[in-house]
């Protein structure tokens, strides 16, 4: 793998309704989301794409499908890049999960059989490794907001923050090379073993 275009999925019904949604397949794209996904395809029109990567969630698969329309590109689902498991917050308001997540430690699992941020980070690292090991040169990877934020931050040397400081735009590509992705995978894997959120105002430094 040489180049990865990483993007969050386009607007889905669960985003429109402000819901935490982690059980696949989940809701598909809204009409606005379909337009966003098509725009993603337009933005990448000048790029060679050999592989499409989605998760098990319909919103990522539909984004990929629209973005790659007209191209004959193999696609795979990488469950390791699935949405974080929200536990008992699944199906409820995302705001409620965010309120809980903003106040709790990264190693604490969401109640109701959910996943901790550290576990999700380790899983994302495994997902990145799967993509990196693929023989294709250029991939479009459609993921979820938390995964995209973690990967972009980690590629820039930043450990995760308790809450995302800035939203991850729907269906906007981020170009990463294999080195970026490898760096992100290593940092997330390492962080997940002794997780501490970074101080938002201090680049990359974890809370003591």
């Amino acid at each position: 793998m040489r180049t990865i275009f990483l993007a969050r999925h386009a607007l889905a019904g669960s985003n429109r309704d402000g819901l935490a949604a982690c059980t696949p397949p989940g809701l598909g794209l809204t009409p606005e989301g379909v337009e966003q996904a098509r725009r993603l395809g337009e933005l990448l029109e000048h790029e060679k794409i050999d592989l499409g990567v989605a998760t098990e969630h319909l919103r990522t698969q539909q984004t990929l499908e629209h973005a790659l329309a007209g191209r004959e590109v193999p696609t795979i689902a990488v469950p390791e890049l699935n949405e974080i498991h929200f536990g008992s917050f699944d199906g409820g308001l995302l705001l409620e999960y965010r309120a809980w997540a903003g106040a709790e430690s990264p190693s604490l699992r969401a109640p109701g059989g959910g996943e901790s941020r550290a576990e999700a980070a380790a899983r994302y690292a495994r997902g990145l490794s799967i993509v990196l090991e693929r023989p294709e040169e250029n991939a479009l990877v459609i993921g979820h907001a938390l995964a995209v934020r973690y990967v972009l931050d980690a590629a820039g040397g930043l450990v995760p923050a308790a809450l995302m400081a800035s939203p991850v735009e729907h269906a906007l590509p981020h170009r990463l090379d294999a080195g970026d992705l490898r760096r992100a995978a290593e940092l997330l894997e390492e962080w997940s073993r002794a997780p501490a959120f970074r101080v938002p105002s201090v680049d990359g430094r974890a809370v003591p």
Partner: protein
Amino acid sequence: MEPNREQILRFCAEDPVERVFLEDMARRGAGRFAGVERRGELRALCHVGVNAVPSGEECGAFAREVARAAPRMLIGEANAVSELWEEARSRLPRPREDRPGQPVFVIDEAPPAGDTGLRAAGVGDLDLLVPACAAAHEQEIGVDPLRRDAEGFRWRTRTQIEEARSWLWEEDGVILFKAEASAWTPSAVQLQQVWVDPEARRAGFGSRGLRDLCRLLLERVPAVCLFVRAENASAIRLYETIGMRHVLDYRSVLI
């Protein structure tokens, strides 16, 4: 038929300036192409995407495929676009604008030095470049890209910088000259969005900047080309002044 890369490159080699965009897309392994073949060689080729870009003979053959793709613009060599448009117009929306006779200029000998501070743009120039690129885009296409898709346009501008296809000469935050490469092959570079900030115009910066950019590029490729709106007399005068030759005409049908 769907042409292969070798067929496309042979076809483009017949006219590397007119077909610079098609060749660039093929070399990148990007884009979708349709072709008309005769005895194993392409007689016509069309890139089918956001823009439909036909070239060659009997391009009306691409009408059905182009209509299905619902492009925003048909652009390319004037006769090829005219043939395609005549066949496809009944299946496409009424055009916003039709621009026949857009001259394509080319230069293959280095002009005199402009003695400017021209340099490759860096990501740190992005905030300065985005409004200028958007203004140049609106001037060329008639649509403000920051109103239609600000994030997407910013991404495109950033990509041009990251691909080392963007150059500027600026002083104290004023762009004295800038341009981007819209296509790049071993045979030619096509420039777009040539721009001087309004407050810096009529001082010769555009000519000096373009001369230095052409000199820079002609060290790496045999030809630099661009096309311009037929009514843009001042730009045409500028291109002629630095030694560019009018070699063919494009036509754009904006949908």
